């Protein structure tokens, strides 16, 4: 088990290094940031001074060597935009996204398991049809569209929720709801599908032959065995959320890492781009290892 974690971690570190290198060179392809940081009417001297000040006048491989050297001292560079340490900026934004993503994925997984199992228990029933269709419909709409309509209806029209921002629990409702739509829709399908095949499996016959109560057959036997694929998909979706709650963060003014990343990308704030990617990639790799461990916990047959 420990050797497995060690192996996975070393793979992950390799991947993170590869990712950072790739991002470093690719972002430099997107042009000179000085034009964005100086007013349009800045002089040529001002531009070259800016480049010199921020080390942008060096050849890119040299800049990369500098970057690596600083990395060894745990120096992730300064944000051009924000006048402070890039990693600090990223680490400040990340928990906000993590909170949102965790709540959204936990809630949608829990709800999807409930709805999906009930749907699978009586396939073809009215509940099954409505649950499948509604969850899929939710997952099929562009999220920013849902978000804006949600604000117009619930905040402006009905005035029951705040439009956006952070603070009270009421501020969480709409962002979480929008974030949940797609994971919930997909997970209901996954739960329903795996539950259907689990309910058709031999050990369910054994349970029925033993006279186990129906509820326990569904939630005790079938569901417990269906969790593995659900965890896989939920893990993938969580990865997506950690990396991509951009739309929700943008619309609701949630100061998360997705928004930070897109702003830094558009503003060519390279050090912050690198740091956000370092943070999210590390989180994603940790998440993946955690999911593997969860597998072993859920299925006693899996041993690493």
């Amino acid at each position: 088990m420990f050797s497995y974690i060690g192996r996975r971690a070393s793979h992950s570190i390799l991947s993170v290094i590869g990712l950072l290198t790739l991002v470093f060179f690719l972002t430099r392809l997107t042009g000179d940031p000085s034009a964005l940081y100086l007013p349009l009417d800045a002089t040529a001297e001002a531009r070259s001074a800016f480049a010199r000040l921020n080390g942008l006048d060096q050849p890119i491989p040299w800049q990369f060597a500098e970057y690596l050297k600083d990395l060894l001292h745990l120096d992730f560079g300064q944000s051009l935009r924000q006048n402070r340490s890039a990693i600090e900026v990223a680490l400040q934004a990340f928990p906000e996204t993590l909170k949102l993503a965790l709540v959204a994925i936990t809630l949608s997984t829990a709800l999807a398991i409930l709805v999906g199992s009930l749907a699978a228990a009586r396939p073809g029933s009215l509940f099954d049809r409505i649950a499948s269709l509604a969850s899929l419909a939710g997952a099929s709409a562009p999220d920013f569209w849902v978000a804006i309509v949600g604000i117009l209806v619930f905040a402006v029209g009905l005035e029951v929720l705040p439009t956006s921002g952070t603070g009270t629990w009421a501020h969480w409702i709409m962002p979480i709801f929008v974030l949940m739509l797609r994971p919930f829709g997909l997970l209901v399908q996954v739960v329903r599908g795996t539950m259907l095949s689990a309910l058709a499996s031999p050990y369910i016959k054994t349970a029925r032959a033993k006279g186990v109560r129906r509820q326990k057959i569904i939630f005790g036997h079938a569901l417990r065995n269906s969790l593995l694929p659900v965890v896989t998909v939920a893990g993938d979706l969580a990865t997506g959320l950690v990396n991509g709650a951009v739309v929700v963060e943008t619309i609701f003014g949630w100061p998360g890492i997705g928004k930070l990343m897109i702003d830094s990308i558009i503003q060519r704030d390279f050090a912050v781009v690198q740091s956000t990617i370092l943070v999210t990639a590390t989180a994603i790799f940790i998440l993946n290892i955690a999911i593997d461990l969860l597998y072993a916990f859920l299925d006693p047959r899996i041993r690493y």
Partner: protein
Amino acid sequence: MTIISPDAEPAAAPGTSRVLLAYLRRDRLALAAAIFLALLVLAALLGPWLVGDAASRLGLRQRNLAPFSPDHAWIYFLGADTLGRPILARLVVGAQSTLGIAAAAVFSSMLIGGTLGLVAGYSERWYSHLILRLADVVMSFPSLLLALIVLYTLGPSITNLVIVLAITRMPIYLRTARAEVLELRERMFVSAARSMGAGPARIILRHIAPLVLPTLVTIAAIDFATVILSESALSFLGLGIQPPDFTWGAMVANGRGYLSTAWWIAFWPGLAIMLTTLSLNILSNWARTVADPQQRWRLQTLRKAAR
């Protein structure tokens, strides 16, 4: 089966397409989805010819024309957009680019991801590990950053958008294909082929790939929906398709500012996206049921014996 003497007739297979059609008819929702998608493909193919240049005809004096106005031509039935262009015509023309982009992206990511997955699953050489690490990297590479890099270095165009979407979706196919191969390569018929002297290329192409394909196609159907949605999210962030080209996603993104004053601009393309992705999901659910021998009976006309 009773004892089968060597000359007993093996069961004859019924016409596959006829059976599928019968299954489709049994699931009314799937049937509706299939009809909708068929119409959509038809519209995408013939639409531009039907509506002519109406999709780009300016009408600055009928900006944000409300839908169902009786005193305008039929093409304004769904209203007009911010430049007074008929939304109906733009939906039809947009169908082509929307579906085209999604299809191209899904197809190329399936092809590339699937191939890499086959190689990574079958071989245990160094390049298999490289492919896996590459997949890790791509998976944690933010698609937005990729979009911007491509947009900047290669310029805004439909092809480049396809590249971005294809790369970001690729790891799914890679991982699925690899997982399937890991299982398939232990199967007896692969051993049998190897024992007959078949080389790796033949085993991968002739024996493994045809069995991996159905799984990949099922994923592709759902992914198609995902790609349409990601494309619209990119448009929302200004990193998607750039005017004068447009997709439904871009139409929703451009119309979002008018949701409180002219809801129809973002509503119709949003509805089109939703119905399309919904139909794809419903159809792929149906396909899963068809493929599962334990569930297939649900789609069959169960004829009871006379009693």
